[in-house]
């Protein structure tokens, strides 16, 4: 079994490991780095429970090899809160009852965060389309949409919305 060295930044912290090239990014995060907030739900990139940001773009970490992500900046649910202060999306999911079992929630929050970075004032339909790669079995999505809208209001009001890390996608 050959291994390759990966080094990447996870939630601002440099991290590295020697991994089998076939290791999935989600398993690197969960099993090697102990960041178990990112979940595996479907294995076939349908459910989005494993959504994280890779260089500012939301990605399904069960469909990315760890070696592919080497050199990247990763953001996971564990990197959303600022110390004891919840990210506005985390607060909004709590306020609006946007979660029940909580299993899809980290992926849903990460995808919503990316969505609001792209589109700070989405319509409800745009929110629904924006989270269409994430499945929730509990909530029926109504309160998730409300939560994303609450956070959209707060993020734009505070003008604290992070600028999309578009470095890798603006070459066109």
């Amino acid at each position: 079994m050959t291994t390759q060295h990966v080094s990447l930044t996870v939630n601002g912290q440099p991290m590295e490991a020697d991994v089998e090239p076939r290791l999935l990014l989600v398993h690197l995060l969960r099993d090697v780095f102990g960041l178990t907030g990112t979940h595996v739900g479907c294995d076939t990139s349908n459910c989005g429970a494993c959504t994280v940001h890779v260089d500012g773009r939301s990605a399904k970490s069960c469909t990315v090899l760890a070696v592919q992500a080497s050199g990247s900046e990763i953001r996971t649910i564990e990197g959303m809160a600022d110390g004891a202060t919840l990210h506005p999306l985390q607060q909004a999911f709590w306020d609006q009852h946007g979660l029940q079992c909580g299993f899809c929630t980290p992926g849903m929050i990460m995808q919503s965060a990316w969505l609001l970075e792209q589109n700070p004032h989405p319509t409800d339909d745009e929110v629904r389309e924006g989270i269409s790669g994430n499945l929730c079995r509990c909530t029926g999505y109504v309160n998730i949409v409300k939560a994303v809208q609450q956070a959209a209001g707060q993020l734009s009001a505070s003008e604290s919305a992070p600028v999309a890390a578009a470095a890798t996608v603006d070459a066109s």
Partner: protein
Amino acid sequence: MIPAQLDYVRPASLDEALRILVDREGEAKLLSGGYSLIPLIKLRLAQPALLVDLQSVPGLDAIAETDDALVIGARATHRDIHESAVIRDRYPGIVDVAGGIGDPQVRNWGTIGGSVAHADPASDWPAFLLAANATIVCRGQGGEREVPARHFFVDTFTTAIEPTEVLTGIRIPRRAAGVGGAYQKLERKVGDFATAGVAAIVRIDAGGTIVGSGIGVTGVSASPYAAVDAESALAGKRPGDDAFRAAGQAAAAMSQPVSDVRGPVDYKRAMVAELTVRALRRATERALAFNG
């Protein structure tokens, strides 16, 4: 679902990638966004010995219009394409395709080159590239060649690209006045592979006659196909539902669907006809509204 063992390299240049493909022919498989390939690797339906990741190969993701073509780099993501200003301004049919592939995460990472080279029989890009008479640019160690889309999609997961070549870009004829395109697909739910998908491009002259058309169909045959009989049926006709329905019937007659979880054969044929009509309607609106 756990991939079988594999090896991985990330060449820094196209030449290096090509060299690896030659050295490891039969083992190497190119990796672009990975959203089509990695699920198959996890299911162990594909077990490449070596993945050659193109992410560090520079210069493959530009989107630009030249005098005669719209050129899209192979590593442009569906989202890059969807958001490209030139495409938003001038190529609404491409916006249809790029905005409807998979889901947002897939569009963030999936690339046009990866999708086209993967050649899933239900994928979206091939339908449009066939309709548009696009060419696919392939680079080997001996140089570059352009393969017309209509000769490219050979079979299920099988294209005209050689195992030692890299798909570097797509060339779509530059849109002219009176030309419009559209893509319509039917999916069981958002993000699904198309039950059927039809791309249509029409060229309408100043007198209001269809002087050229392209119809590409996906999801209903071993590989996407150009509905040449439908194109013939449209030639010289005035745009309108009668002509579109005739074209739809012709496109449907060329399909070779199988009965499966997406529906029976006659349903899929009927959907090809229906989607052809809808795509032609929209393409016609766009053609009539575009003055170059």
